[in-house]
């Protein structure tokens, strides 16, 4: 079986190619960073939101650097094998369980955001409890199939996302915002601090990349390209936050969840173009679906490793049921949602884990490289079996 997987032509000897890895990083860098986050930041910080975004982004980028290093140095063994080799089976499973919880938390935030976006912007009456089924259906398919399929999907979608972003940016630049509205900066340190606090629940967007450890065909410049795409994605996110800060910086009370990039653009271009912005936004929201699909996939594979079974369909269904309940009963409720994302617990735990997960992975990779000469027992994990599929 393994033999067949390595045979998969020189195009894709592993689950992901370097290009696909780069593309995924780009999507992760800007997907959720451009959804509700700018609104929350503006509500909390006013016109300094973009600075908060840049600081949070820098933290995430640093963690991205660690993850890329882990992926590039990893060699043949995937994360779960490395964890088992370094910490032993029980400890590895415990650690993975924590990873799974974190991924599930991030998944919930992503999905809640996507649903809120559609509920407030695109639909007049959007029944979350029903329409989430469409999303769950997609998730089950993602959980059932391989990481390769998800990478390919992302590779296929990314030109559309980039084109939509380009259209949005052109609209913004052409119509001319009064960007000077963001001055003066940092007049209210307390608000700035609360903005940073808000951002913390959004950190860790790059954590699912640990799944690419040992499963990416890295070339000489893969790491460099990955970092570049992360930085450019983050720049786009900061740019749009800047635009929104300029538009709403004076009147932060006016921003609510129905306000996002789309409505800003609408404001700037007016009805002249027949709401082309909305189409672009809807197309571009695909990136959020892909990000949440990646978190879903990560959750499922972590669970698969913890319970030691490769029943991918069953696990996906299980995670979907959990997701459904947490979404319908908790996350769609505005107050609970904002409580979850702004509570002290999540504000401390999320960035901590967002830092610990990549660092731990890197440590594992480094120790694994040293140990590599020793035993080479491929632990039967979810991934290895899947790779050979």
């Amino acid at each position, binding site marked *: 079986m393994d033999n067949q997987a390595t045979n998969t032509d020189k195009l894709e000897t592993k689950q992901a190619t370097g290009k696909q890895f780069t593309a995924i990083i780009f999507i992760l860098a800007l997907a959720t960073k451009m959804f509700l986050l700018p609104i929350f930041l503006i509500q909390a910080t006013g016109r300094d939101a973009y600075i908060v975004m840049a600081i949070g982004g820098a933290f995430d980028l640093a963690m991205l650097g660690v993850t890329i290093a882990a992926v590039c140095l990893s060699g043949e063994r995937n994360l779960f094998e490395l964890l088992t080799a370094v910490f032993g089976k029980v400890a590895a499973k415990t650690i993975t369980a924590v990873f799974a919880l974190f991924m599930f938390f991030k998944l919930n935030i992503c999905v809640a955001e996507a649903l809120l976006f559609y509920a407030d912007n695109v639909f*007049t*009456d959007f*029944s979350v409890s*029903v*329409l989430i*089924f*469409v999303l769950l*259906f997609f998730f*089950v398919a993602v959980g059932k199939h391989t990481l390769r399929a998800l990478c390919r999907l992302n590779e296929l979608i990314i030109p559309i996302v980039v084109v939509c972003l380009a259209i949005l940016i052109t609209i913004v630049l052409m119509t*001319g915002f009064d960007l*000077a*509205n963001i*001055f*003066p900066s940092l*007049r209210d340190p307390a608000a700035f601090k609360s903005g940073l606090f808000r951002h913390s629940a959004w950190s860790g967007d790059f954590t699912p990349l640990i799944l690419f450890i040992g499963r990416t065909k890295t070339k000489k410049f893969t790491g460099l390209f990955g970092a570049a795409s992360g930085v450019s994605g983050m720049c786009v996110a900061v740019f749009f936050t800047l635009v929104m800060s300029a*538009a*709403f910086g*004076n*009147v932060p*009370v*006016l921003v*609510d969840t*129905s*306000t996002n990039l789309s*409505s*800003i653009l*609408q*404001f*700037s*271009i*007016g*009805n*002249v173009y027949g709401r082309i912005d909305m189409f672009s936004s809807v197309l571009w929201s695909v990136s959020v679906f892909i990000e949440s699909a990646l978190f879903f996939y990560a959750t499922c594979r972590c669970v698969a490793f913890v319970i030691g079974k490769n029943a991918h*369909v069953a696990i996906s269904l299980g995670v979907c049921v959990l997701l459904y309940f947490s979404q319908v009963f908790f996350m769609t409720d505005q107050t609970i949602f904002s409580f979850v994302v702004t509570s002290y617990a999540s504000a401390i735990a999320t960035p901590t884990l967002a830092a610990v997960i990549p660092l731990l992975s890197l440590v594992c990779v480094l120790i694994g490289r040293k140990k590599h000469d020793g035993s080479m027992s491929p632990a039967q994990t979810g991934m290895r079996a899947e790779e050979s599929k």
Partner: protein
Amino acid sequence: MTTQKKLLIYKILIFVFAFIVAFLPTTVSRSREVNSRVIVEILGIDGGEEIGVTAQYVMPTGAQGATSKDTVSVKGKTLQEAVEALSTALGRRAELGHCSMVIVGENVEPELLGTLMTATDVTADVYLAAAESKAEELVGQLTDFMKKTGATDADFIAYGAKKSHVATNTLLGFLCDIGSASQSSFMPVVTMIENSDKQSAQSGDDGGEGGGGEGSQGDGSGKQGGDGGGTGMNVEKLALYSPDGRLGVIDKDAARGVAWVSSPIEKGIVTATVQADGETVAEVSARLLKKHVDIKTYAKTNSAKIKVRAIIEPRGDKFNKLDAKNSAAASKAIKDGFSKAIESELRAAKESAALYGCDPLFIGKTFYRYSPDYFETEYDAGSVDIDFDVEIVIK
């Protein structure tokens, strides 16, 4: 798991999914359809004891694409109530997402406009226009006018923003200005021109081209010294606002001055009196091609400098007579003439605004941006010394 079992599971899943999606009543209700809506094109808001909302709505009539317009007015304790009442009055849900203009009555407070943006479907990009007194009356007059001319679109003001010298503002722009350090904002005042027999025929023709032409036409002809008679709209004056409400209305010259600084005007006619070779040539007209505005504030001297650089393209017999292209002196005379004309408009804007204690040129905002500490401690709007510097480039 065998393939057959898997297939069975998929089939069951698909069936369950289809069942859930198809049969839950919320997704299949027919209330969402296009035909259960009424498109509102212009919304009028009146403040006071009760909030009054007037809507100009469009209904499709028998033939393809033909429409009929009408207005309806309702009142409510709050804006949300009034909008709800609107739907009741129309018998169907009022679709405010397509609204392209909001007419603001005399007593409306900016806060109400904030509610309009956040609590209703009205988009942030709608253009605002002020009625001299009641919005309800103006919406009614506008509807009659549009019926008469057969205009289909209601975005005259949008047209004015792009093609003529009118200071316009959108809902979000207005609120943003009010929220800024200057605490001032403005919107154009729309009035209807009552019939004067002589020119009504001509105006009627103009209206036929589309509602958009009307705003600029009225404005342009007014500027060129005509009476601006005939049935049409007059968009010349400007209503100034503070967070507490309307401060007052400033006249045409001052309004043009505000437009120079605070509105993204692109086109429009500028006229000036030029003195060349000791001869005075009145009303040389030019088309504005582009303008750059730069506001500089000096905290130390408590002064501000507004620099306007206008690129214009003079035209017409009077300009030909001067023949600026050949003579440097004539060219200079024209530049001087126009810069004087523009400067006088800017000064008019400054003075009328100072009269109402308003800051539509956003000097205060600029002070706050670049010297926030000074703004918070010492700044006094009345004592700032504003200087104007107009540069003309002839194309």
